[in-house]
C-alpha cells in the first residue's frame, strides 16, 4: 500500500525517536543513507556558522534551520536531478542537496544580488521572501512542464504559517484542477514567528487541507529523515507517473520543530517555553539517524569524525569564498530590471556614476 493512502491524521514514521526501525525503510543504498546523514550534519554545522557570522556583524539577518534537517534533506534527496525544487527562505539544506553551493546562500544573506542566482545546472527556483507566493509559481511551472511533455516533479516548500495565505489556497486549487505534478511540502515547524500552529488554523492537521483540493494529504514525522524520504519519493513518483485513478499533486505535512530563533532578529523566549524546546530536541533527527546507521554498521566513530572534518572544511571554504566577494557594483541594481536597459535607467545609472566620481564612493556608503 502506498503511504499516501493513509489518512491525513495518521503520522508516518520509519525511525522512532530512539533511532529504532518502526516502519518500512525506503530502499536506499548504504552510501545514500550516509549521504543523507552527512547533509544533515552539514546543515547543522552551516547553520551554527551562519548564526555566528551574523552575531559578528559579518552577515545580515539569517533564518536558522536547526531541527529541520531531516525534512529538508530527506525530501530533497527524493528528487532526481531533473526535478525542480521551489524553496522558501529557510531551505538552505534542501537547496544544497539539489545543487546550490553554500556560498550562494551565504552571499544572499550577506545582501549580495549574486546570492540569488541559482547555478544553471541546478533546477532550483529563486528564493522570494513573501510568504506562500512561490506556491502558485510551482504549480504554474509544473503545469508548463506537462504542457511541454516533460516528466518532472516539482517540490515546493513552505511553512505552517504559509498555509493561511490566499496564495496557498489558489496554488493548491489550481494544482488539483489542472492535475499538475507538484508536491506541496509543508515544513510545519510549529511556529510562524511567534504564532503557534494551533492559532494558525483550527484544522487538526495541515495534511487534511488537501481534502479541499481533491488530492492526497499525508502527515509525516518531519524529524525522521527516512520517513520523509519515503513519503516524498512516493509523492514524486506519483506526480511524474500517476496511476489511472490517482491525481498527481500531493500535500505533505512534515511535523517538525525549529530549535532556534525564527531569524537572528527574533527572541523566541518571549513566546515559547524552554520545556517545549527541550521536548522537541528529544526528537532531534541527527542522533536518530546516526544511531540507526551505527547500529546497522553503516557508521562508526572513524567515519563520523571524517565526515565532521570534511563538513567543517566545506563550510569554511564557503565562508571564505563568500567573504572574498567584493561589494557588488551599483550597476547590478540596473542591469537586470529588463532584458535591455531602457533610456531612463541608463541615465539614472550615469547620474549615479557621475556623482560617485565627483564626490567619492565613500559619500554614498554608510558605516
Amino acid at each position, binding site marked *: 500500500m502506498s503511504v499516501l493512502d493513509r489518512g491525513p491524521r495518521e503520522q508516518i514514521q520509519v525511525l522512532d525517536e530512539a533511532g529504532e526501525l518502526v516502519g518500512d525503510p525506503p530502499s536506499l543504498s548504504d552510501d545514500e543513507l550516509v549521504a543523507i546523514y552527512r547533509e544533515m550534519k552539514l546543515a547543522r554545522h552551516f547553520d551554527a556558522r551562519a548564526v555566528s557570522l551574523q552575531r559578528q556583524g559579518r552577515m545580515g539577518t539569517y533564518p536558522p534551520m536547526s531541527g529541520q534537517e531531516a525534512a529538508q534533506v530527506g525530501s530533497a534527496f527524493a528528487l532526481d536531478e531533473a526535478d525542480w525544487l521551489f524553496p522558501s527562505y529557510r531551505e538552505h539544506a534542501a537547496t544544497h542537496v539539489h545543487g546550490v553551493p553554500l556560498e550562494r546562500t551565504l552571499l544572499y544573506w550577506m545582501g549580495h*544580488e*549574486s546570492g*540569488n*542566482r*541559482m547555478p*544553471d545546472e541546478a533546477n532550483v*527556483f*529563486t*528564493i*522570494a521572501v*513573501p510568504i506562500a*507566493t512561490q*506556491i*502558485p*509559481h*510551482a*504549480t*504554474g*511551472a*509544473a*503545469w*508548463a*512542464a506537462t*504542457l*511541454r511533455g516533460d516528466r518532472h516533479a516539482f517540490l515546493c516548500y513552505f511553512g505552517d504559517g504559509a498555509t493561511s495565505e*490566499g*496564495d496557498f489556497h*489558489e*496554488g493548491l*486549487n*489550481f494544482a488539483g*484542477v*489542472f492535475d499538475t505534478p507538484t508536491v506541496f511540502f509543508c515544513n510545519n515547524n510549529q511556529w510562524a514567528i511567534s504564532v503557534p500552529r494551533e492559532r494558525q488554523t483550527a484544522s487538526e492537521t495541515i495534511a487534511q487541507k488537501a481534502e479541499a483540493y481533491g488530492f492526497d494529504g499525508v502527515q509525516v514525522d518531519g524529524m525522521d529523515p527516512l520517513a520523509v524520504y519515503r513519503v516524498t519519493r512516493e509523492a514524486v513518483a506519483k506526480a511524474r507517473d500517476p496511476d489511472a485513478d490517482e491525481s498527481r499533486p500531493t500535500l505533505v505535512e512534515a511535523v517538525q520543530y525549529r530549535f532556534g530563533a525564527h531569524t537572528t532578529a527574533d527572541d523566541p523566549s518571549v513566546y515559547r517555553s524552554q520545556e517545549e524546546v527541550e521536548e522537541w530536541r528529544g526528537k532531534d533527527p541527527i542522533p536518530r539517524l546516526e544511531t540507526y546507521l551505527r547500529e546497522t554498521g553503516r557508521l562508526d566513530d572513524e567515519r563520523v569524525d571524517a565526515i565532521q572534518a570534511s563538513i567543517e572544511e566545506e563550510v569554511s571554504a564557503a565562508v571564505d569564498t563568500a567573504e572574498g566577494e567584493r561589494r557588488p557594483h551599483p550597476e547590478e541594481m540596473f542591469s*537586470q*530590471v*529588463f*532584458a535591455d536597459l*531602457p*533610456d*531612463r535607467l541608463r541615465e539614472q545609472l550615469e547620474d549615479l556614476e557621475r556623482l560617485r566620481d565627483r564626490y567619492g564612493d565613500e559619500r554614498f556608503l554608510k558605516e
Partner: protein
Amino acid sequence: MSAQNLTLVQAVRDGLHTEMQNDEDVIVLGEDVGKNGGVFRATEGLYDEFGGDRVVDTPLAEAGIVGTSIGMAAYGLRPVPEIQFMGFIYPAFDQIISHAARLRTRSRGRFTCPMVVRAPYGGGIRAPEHHSESKEAFFVHEPGLKVVIPSTPYDTKGLLISAVRDPDPVVFLEPKLIYRAFREEVPDEEYTVPLGEAAVRREGGDVSVFTWGAMTRVTMEAAENLAAEGVDCEVVDLRTLSPLDRDAVVESFRKTGRAAVVHEAPKTGGLAGELTAIVQEEALLYQEAPVERITGFDTPYPLYALEDYYLPSVARIEDGIRNVVEY
C-alpha cells in the same frame, strides 16, 4: 498585403491568434476565456482552434491566474493571462508587483517573466461598480513592468504582438469603451508596433495634449472643435506608458510651450503629474502656461448614472485646453 476592417477588440483577438499560430509556447488563460471566448469576445474561437490546453478556463482566482502564469513563464512558456476587468486585478497585485516585475532582477536573469497580463480598463459602458477602473499609474510606478494602452485597432494588434514577444512582463490595458466604437484596416499578416513609442495623432502648434487609450478619441473631438475656434492642438497618444516616450513628449512641448494631459484616472497621483514633471525638467524654459490636468476626479468611480460627469468629456477637455491657451 491583405487586410480586414476590424474593431479594437477584434484586433486583440487577431493579435492573440497570430502569436498563438507563430509560437506554440503562447498560452491564453483566465476566467471565461475558453469556451465562452471571453466576456468581451476577445478570445473568441481560440479555444476551438487551439484546444483547452492552450486556451484555458481557470478557476476564479486572479492571484492564481497570474501566479501560475509566472511559473509558466519561468519555465519557458509565454502566458497571456486575462484579468476580466481591471477593477479585479488587485487580488493579483502582489503577484504582479512583487514577483512578475522582479523575477529577472531577483534571479539575476536566470528566470524571466515574458508574460502579458491583459485587462480591459476604463469607464463609460454603463457597467456595475469596479468595471470602470483606470489605475495605470500603479503599474507605471513599479520598476520591471511595461505598461501599454492602445487606442486604435491597428496599434492594438501590433502592440500586442510586440508585448507577447517582449522578454519582460507587460501589463496590456485595453480601452473597452472603444472595443467596438469603430473599425480600421488591420493587416492579416503579423506586424509589430514597437513598445515605448508615442504617436502624434494630430499635429498642431498651439498646445500639446497628451493622452492615451479611450481618451484619445474624446480628445481628438475636442481638438477638432477647438480648431474651429482657431486653437491648433497637437494630440499625442502615448500608447506605451512605461517606458514613456519622453523624447516625443518633450519634442512636442518644446514646439508648443503649452500642454494638457487627459486621463480617466483620479487626478492626484495620476500620470498627469509625471508628465508635468518631465516637461518642466526638460523644457521649463519653453513653458508658457501650467500644464492642465484634465482627469477623473479624486473620488471612487461612481455607479453609472453619474459616470458621464466623472469622465473627461469633450466639453471639459475643451475648457481645460482653453485655460492653457489663454493663460
